[in-house]
């Protein structure tokens, strides 16, 4: 493929799944249909704030009056397996 501007030879690169044709002479770039939109979408993902952390019960500060010791750790839920019941139900 030849550059539509200077007729130099164009090389194809692959950037994040987008084919980019770049002229070896004038460095001009040619995009296929839809590729500009793909790049725009990739760019907006980069600038988006990170998703809010998932809300865990224990990650909220403990309600006043119930507290949590300094050596404690937040509740993670769904752990009622293994020796859970034995340790809660026997000496």
């Amino acid at each position, binding site marked *: 493929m030849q550059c539509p501007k200077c007729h130099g030879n164009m090389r194809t690169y692959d950037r994040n799944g987008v084919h980019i044709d770049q002229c070896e002479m004038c460095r001009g770039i040619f995009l296929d249909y839809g590729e500009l939109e793909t790049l725009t979408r990739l760019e907006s993902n980069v600038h988006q704030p990170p998703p809010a952390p998932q809300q865990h*019960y*224990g990650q909220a500060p*403990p*309600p*006043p*009056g*119930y*507290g*949590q*010791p300094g*050596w*404690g*750790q*937040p*509740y*993670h*839920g769904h*752990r*009622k*397996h*293994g*020796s*859970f*019941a*034995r*340790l*809660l*139900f*026997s*000496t």
Partner: protein
Amino acid sequence: MTPTAELVTAMTRFADADGDPEILSTRSGAVVIRVGRVVVKAHRAETDGDVLTAQASIVRHEALRGVFAEPLALTRLGDRWISIWPAGRPVSPDDPDVAPWEHAARLLARLHTAPLPAVGRLPVSGGPVRVAQAVAGLPPGAVAEKEITAAYAGLPDWARDRAPVPVAGRLAHGDWHLGQLVHLDGTGWRLIDIDDVGTGDPAWDLARPAAFYAAGLLAPEVWARFLDAYREAGGCAIPPDGDPWPALDVPAKAMTVQLAAFAVTKTHEDNRPLDEIQELFVDACRRISGLHHLR
């Protein structure tokens, strides 16, 4: 016939109830069986009869009416003390979130605020002794031995059974967990197991759920239900409002050490690795001792 089988036969005869004996527990030297409508317990061989008699008198005392299942009989049978109790329905271990936490809290609050009954020499309630035993029983070189002993070493002397408990003078169960609660037909929920009942720091009775909460294993909602009910019933082990942890910190740390130590000892004997729940208590020991920074 094994000694246990002989004992069960003697206990069944003593129970004098309809039904075949069903062994409920043979842990820590005690044997508990159910025969029809009653439960028969052969207490540990080293049980002091005077202490057990005093404990039976405490739970029968009118100030505590409705708190404990009351013994139907207490006697010496050969070299063992045997007691008979009404059989009840235990708490289902399937979903601790729906356990009768409020009932438990109210019963404990009543126990803790009851006047000390005049029943002769009151025993010291369990707690520190068991933590000391748990750590003493750790097999040398067992996994996490360092973390557990370091957390234990950081506890005050009274929590390691090396000094008198400073907050004595209250009645306490001494070994409370969800297995120490049964529902008696037509009567309601009652505490069971009097072997560790005595005077001591009542906060120790809240230590099991407190340790589970601190390990991230007990939902904050469940913890709140338990504490709210305890406070509403006038329980005196924690302040009526505000942060309960100044009162709970040492007993909950000690219970964490105990749970981790018993788990490590048991899995060492069985030649198995710790499961995720047991690891969480070892992790808590690391945080208690400050060793998590070195991990």
